[in-house]
């Protein structure tokens, strides 16, 4: 047996998808980093400038309504020292993680089962489609009635809200596996079980991961609202509690912490996604 060189020029299909204008120029990674960091620096500078300009020059509104970033930072340091901030963060995070895990488990499991069975799909999908457009918040007062004002209502609420995107994307992923790949696997001797394990699941994985990422984001989105209504801890509670005492810096602090946590989690999830899906040409790196 002899090996032969292929003598072909490799053309990458990804090239065509790149943004126009940048096709020839290689991306300068340092420049990208500087620009992206600049985005955040400019945001804080504008905030700072607006706050100072209003307080000392323009006096358009009560300066208390828009404290400068360093006031928020000071409030944060004070709260961190007292241990209060950590307590709120942990309370919110633990609800988000519990609710999200329930949603992820239920969404992926039910989505997979429904995606595998036409009968189940007909039985389940219309109801899900009926419930999906209702903002989860509409059910929050009911959740409080059903599960009380303890942890269960908040965890249940997050689980409910995060379930939909996870279920829907998993279902789509399982349903729309390229039939050619299934034929290819069958002609290589794969049984139904093998096909599910080695073709359907990996083919649906990008969809499932997207659903999980959206579901996780949504968990953070809705936890704050839940903590407005019935909680004595958590970042939502922190914001609402600060409002009653007119502590604007603390309100902004609550929002800023949520922003920072969401930002950090998104980076982690995208890294994970890029690693799991490194076979995809367009996977973000």
């Amino acid at each position, binding site marked *: *047996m002899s*090996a*032969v*060189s*292929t*003598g*072909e*020029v*490799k*053309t*990458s*299909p*990804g090239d065509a998808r790149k943004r126009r204008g940048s096709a020839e120029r290689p991306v300068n990674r340092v420049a990208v980093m500087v620009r992206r960091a600049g985005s955040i620096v400019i945001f804080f500078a504008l905030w700072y400038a607006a706050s100072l300009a209003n307080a000392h020059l323009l006096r358009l509104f009560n300066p208390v309504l828009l404290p400068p970033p360093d006031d928020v930072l000071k409030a944060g340091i004070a709260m961190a020292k007292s241990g209060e901030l950590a307590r709120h963060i942990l309370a919110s995070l633990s609800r988000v993680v519990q609710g999200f895990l329930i949603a992820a488990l239920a969404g992926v499991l039910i989505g997979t089962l429904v995606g595998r069975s036409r009968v189940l799909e007909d039985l389940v999908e219309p109801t899900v489609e009926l419930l999906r457009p209702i903002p989860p918040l509409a059910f929050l007062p009911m959740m409080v009635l059903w599960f009380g004002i303890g942890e269960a209502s908040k965890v249940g609420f997050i689980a409910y809200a995060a379930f939909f995107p996870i279920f829907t994307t998993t279902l789509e992923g399982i349903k729309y596996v*390229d039939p*050619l*790949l299934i*034929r*290819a*696997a*069958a*002609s*290589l*001797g*794969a*049984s139904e079980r*093998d096909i599910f394990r*080695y*073709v359907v699941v*990996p*083919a649906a*994985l990008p969809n499932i991961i997207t659903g999980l990422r959206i579901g996780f984001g949504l968990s953070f989105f809705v936890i704050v609202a839940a903590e407005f209504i019935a909680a004595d801890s958590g970042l939502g509670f922190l914001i609402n509690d600060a409002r009653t005492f007119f502590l604007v810096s603390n309100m902004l602090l609550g929002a800023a912490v949520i922003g920072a946590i969401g930002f950090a989690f998104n980076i982690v999830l995208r890294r994970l996604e890029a690693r799991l*899906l*490194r*076979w*995809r*040409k367009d996977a973000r790196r």
Partner: protein
Amino acid sequence: MTVAKIRIEGVSKSYTADILALGRIDLELGANSFTCLLGPSGCGKSTLLNMIAGFVEPTHGRVLVDGIEVVGASADRGVVFQEYALFPWRTALDNVAFGPMIRRLPRAEQRERAERYLTLVGLAEHGTKFPSELSGGMKQRVAIARALANGPSVLLMDEPFGALDAQTRETMQEELLRIWQEDRKTVVFVTHSISEAIFLGDRIIVMATRPGAVKQVIEVGLAHPRERSAPDFVALERQIKQLVREEVEKLGIV
């Protein structure tokens, strides 16, 4: 011909009650033969291949391989698709190792086999690449290696080089012949290229359209390697072109 490797007995296929996609077909394909199914789109050549593969059930009649009726796909009949159908999440090497993995061979043997067949198709250096990092020709090489690594006795190819540029296509035809001459599988090769069919096949089944049927079976008596500009080659090409043109005209649209 001695005992047929593949027997097609009174096979027909209709997808709807009144439209016959493929009329009654009887064929015998000998072991280790290279048969080309040639015809314009809509002649049912891919349907016939899919029935041999076990992907599609005939409406009437049956397909026998080694005397056993085909029911569903089997590892003994390897398939190569025009669209490659590689698993995009597996590297080239892992794609080739898929069959051995399904057969639960020991890991070392899976790898050894995959490497051997990847070398056979000239891609020993590219084992760690994902399909998205390979050119069309390279992808089809991986797909051929994947089909062969399972040790099938039949190799079914559905316009495997149809998506490749002309240059790559001719290289791939030569490669396929080289591989086939080393290890003579029974090959059924679907194509709409007359020159491809003459270059590769022992036998060419020219298919008729509306309904799909066997129009003429042509034994290609030319010795390998075949020269596309040789007078015999050109004469055969002209003869088949006439046959195919009659069928294309029946379709009314060109």
